[in-house]
């Protein structure tokens, strides 16, 4: 890191697939006894109190060398264009110093979550990743999304993880990348079968709701034995933000303490489930093979349920973990196992299917193209009290690309129209606004430029060049039309108009009878 250049934007920490780059903001005096090489500087920006310093640290021994942090860094030295605020360096000369710095860094306190500016990349990256050092491929396009979710909600997450890449790098037992914070809180992670992950996660939601309902009932029954103000506050707590959640946790601690003083059997029962009065965040995570394909029936069922779950689809557009078989997310023309001559049909538009319910929050994101849109989508999805579906574009080695180009591939996908960025928030419809917001511009580069940069598409030109050209023409047309359709939907007026509902004859008769 070069702190002379660094602007503390946090992008390097955001994109690191293995959670190796971290930032912490802390009072400067805490670094008084830091190792000699430990760098920290006053934090930039008026959102942070006077005297706060920031330090970015790299767990050098856990770095896989994917170079994506350097790639995303927007700051270049004015007199040396290939030197950035963060640069790659050989490990050996810096190993010992980095080890000492990392050890010191870990014991620094985390920034108070109530003060975190989560809607900024810089602020959100001050949150501790509770998903770290996974066994994913170097440069993986999936893990930054999971890591982000844990930085935002990790201390109250329950994760239902479909079998697939994410369950392999996420559960290579006896080690696990799922971690806990300094308070001992972290995601509770479970791995389901491939085909039933959505239902598995829905079960978690139902269980939590039932526990919360039961805890509330017990609270009411014990109200006379407890501080009634505490009971009312527990029952009507606003947990919409970190401060509200923090206050509720304090109340639950107070409740647990009070329950210990009571001898009623109901108090013993409430003790076991009092924690459920704190807000939980249920995440159903899996790949496109699960969501679009084998688990789609269950996914649809969960979307239709209206329950408050957050579904994260890590869309590599192919069955990655099992070796590259076609899924219904595979785009037209991509070569994959079972589609050796290029897939004949278009990719399923899962987002549009989910939007049709009109009660589902839907986001189509690609962090390498627009990281802030991804961040906002995660925050909005989690805050929506109903089903949320985030479909996240994830470059994969199965695409036949070098993942050091991960961000470039995401940009090409977005700019070519292959992966439009948008968010559909049903809360806006309730306010009389159009719920669909497009976050990317119309296709600005030829679709050919995108497909010829990835072996999964370009190899079709080697086997069946005429067919490849024919498919390319169809795909080009498709991406244009799809964007146009979304553009039209996003432009619709959502203000309620005066509707005159025509009466049927029999109704007329009723009125007059």
């Amino acid at each position, binding site marked *: 890191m070069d702190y002379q250049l660094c602007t503390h934007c946090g992008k390097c920490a955001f994109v690191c697939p293995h959670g190796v780059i971290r930032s912490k903001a802390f009072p400067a005096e805490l670094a008084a006894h830091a190792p000699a090489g430990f760098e920290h500087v006053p934090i930039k920006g008026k959102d942070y109190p006077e005297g706060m310093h920031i330090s970015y640290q790299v767990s050098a021994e856990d770095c896989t060398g994917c170079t994506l942090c350097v790639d995303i860094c927007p700051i270049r030295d004015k007199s040396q264009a290939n030197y950035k605020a963060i640069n790659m360096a050989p490990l050996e000369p810096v190993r010992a110093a980095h080890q000492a710095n990392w050890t010191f860094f870990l014991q620094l306190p985390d920034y108070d979550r109530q003060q975190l500016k989560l809607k900024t990349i810089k602020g959100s990256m001050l949150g501790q990743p509770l998903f770290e050092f996974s066994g994913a491929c170097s440069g993986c396009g999936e893990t930054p999304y999971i890591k982000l979710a844990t930085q935002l909600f990790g201390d109250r997450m329950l994760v239902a993880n479909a079998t697939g890449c994410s369950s392999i790098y996420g559960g290579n037992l006896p080690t696990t990348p799922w971690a806990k914070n300094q308070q001992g809180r972290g995601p509770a992670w479970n791995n389901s079968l491939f085909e039933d992950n959505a239902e598995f996660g829905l079960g978690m939601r139902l269980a939590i709701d039932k526990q919360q309902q039961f805890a509330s009932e017990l609270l009411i029954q014990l109200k006379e034995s407890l501080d009634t103000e505490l009971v009312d506050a527990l029952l009507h707590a606003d947990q919409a933000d970190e401060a509200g959640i923090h206050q509720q946790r304090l109340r639950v601690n107070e409740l647990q303490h009070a329950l210990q003083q009571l001898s009623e059997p109901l108090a013993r029962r409430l003790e076991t489930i009092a924690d459920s009065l704190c807000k939980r965040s249920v995440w159903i995570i899996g790949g496109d093979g699960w969501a679009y394909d084998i688990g789609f029936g269950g996914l649809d069922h969960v979307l239709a349920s209206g329950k408050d779950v957050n579904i994260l689809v890590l869309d590599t557009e*192919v069955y990655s973990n099992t070796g590259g078989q076609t899924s219904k997310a595979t785009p037209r023309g991509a070569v994959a196992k079972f589609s050796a001559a290029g897939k004949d049909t278009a990719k399923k538009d899962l987002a549009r299917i989910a939007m049709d319910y009109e009660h589902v929050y839907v986001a189509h994101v690609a962090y390498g193209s627009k990281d802030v849109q991804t961040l906002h989508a995660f925050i909005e999805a989690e805050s929506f009290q109903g089903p949320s579906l985030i479909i996240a574009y994830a470059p994969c080695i199965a695409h036949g690309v070098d993942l050091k180009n991960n961000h470039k591939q995401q940009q090409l996908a977005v700019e070519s129209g292959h992966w439009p960025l948008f968010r559909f928030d049903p809360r806006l419809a309730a306010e009389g606004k159009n719920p669909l917001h497009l976050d990317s511009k119309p296709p600005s580069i030829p679709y050919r430029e995108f497909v010829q940069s990835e072996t999964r598409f370009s*190899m079709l030109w080697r*086997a069946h060049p005429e067919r490849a050209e024919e498919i390319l023409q169809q795909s080009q047309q498709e991406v244009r039309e799809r964007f146009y359709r979304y553009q039209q939907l996003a432009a619709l007026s959502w203000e309620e108009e005066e509707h005159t509902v025509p009466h049927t004859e029999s109704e007329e008769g009723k009125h007059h009878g």
Partner: protein
Amino acid sequence: MADLSTSYMGLPLINPLIASSSPLTGNLDDARRLEDAGAAAIILPSLFEEELLQDQQQMHEFMDHQAIGHGEADSFLPPSSDYKSHLDHYLETIATIKAAIDIPVIGSLNGVSLAGWLEHGADLQQAGCDALELNIYYVPANPEETGSDVESRYLQILENLCAQFTLPIGIKISHSFSSIAHFVRQLERAGAKGTALFNRFYQPDIDLSSLQVTPKIQLSNSIESLERIRWIALLRAHVQMDLAATGGFHDANDVIKAVLAGADAVYLCSSLLQHGIQRLPEILSDISDWMHVHEYESIAQLKGSVCQKHAIEPAAYERANYLKTLKSYQRSDNN
């Protein structure tokens, strides 16, 4: 009607216009259109050995070497046996084009190693090319490498290829040689049947927003033809082999000047990309008209008639003429 016939690399041509390496010469439809429009020969897009190696390496890497440590995912893309390499595709294209048109088809090759030049030269001969052009597209950026090293390497390659192959071999060179006249004569002695002057290198550009150095394709313009015309005029009397002019030839005037200077053939590329294949018959028609007006009967008659040896003022080609040229320039605000 004037006789436009000529020859290049010993190949008889119906006129001096050769469609040089470009996307237009790499597919059957355009090759046919070029022949119909009057092209005397076509030169296929260059086969770059470096590109072939990269292609093989990339395919190998992405298709066969993605094992990540467990049996279920030892590859991600279907087996590669059915897929054609860039070389397979290139050779197939040559064979298809060669079978479909009657004008000469010239292969173009850029190698990085002697073995590569020989191996792929043999591939091109076997695929049916009528001649082979060695495209020296090389940026000598290594400060340890002398000009003699660079020249020797190409002479050695040329000698080896000429010894091994029966088809005529020509060479396309850049202007970045310190003694062009000497080098071209060496090429002839090494066995070249023709030399094309000069290759144009695509110059990388700096993107002012990203500061990235990016490749940039800039089509030629007629001004660039003057350097080629000058060197052909200077060389004409010193070599017996055929000479072709390439780089900046856009209209009949450019072509006529090159032939007057001594060119046996003229390559067209940017003009066809810019104006389309229909540019060919326009240029041919304009050449015929010019020859008619100036009472030339054949290309053979006018070829080399204004080369240095036959020029009214031979020294004009050689002299730097710097001051005279500079003095002749008038600023537009003085007009």
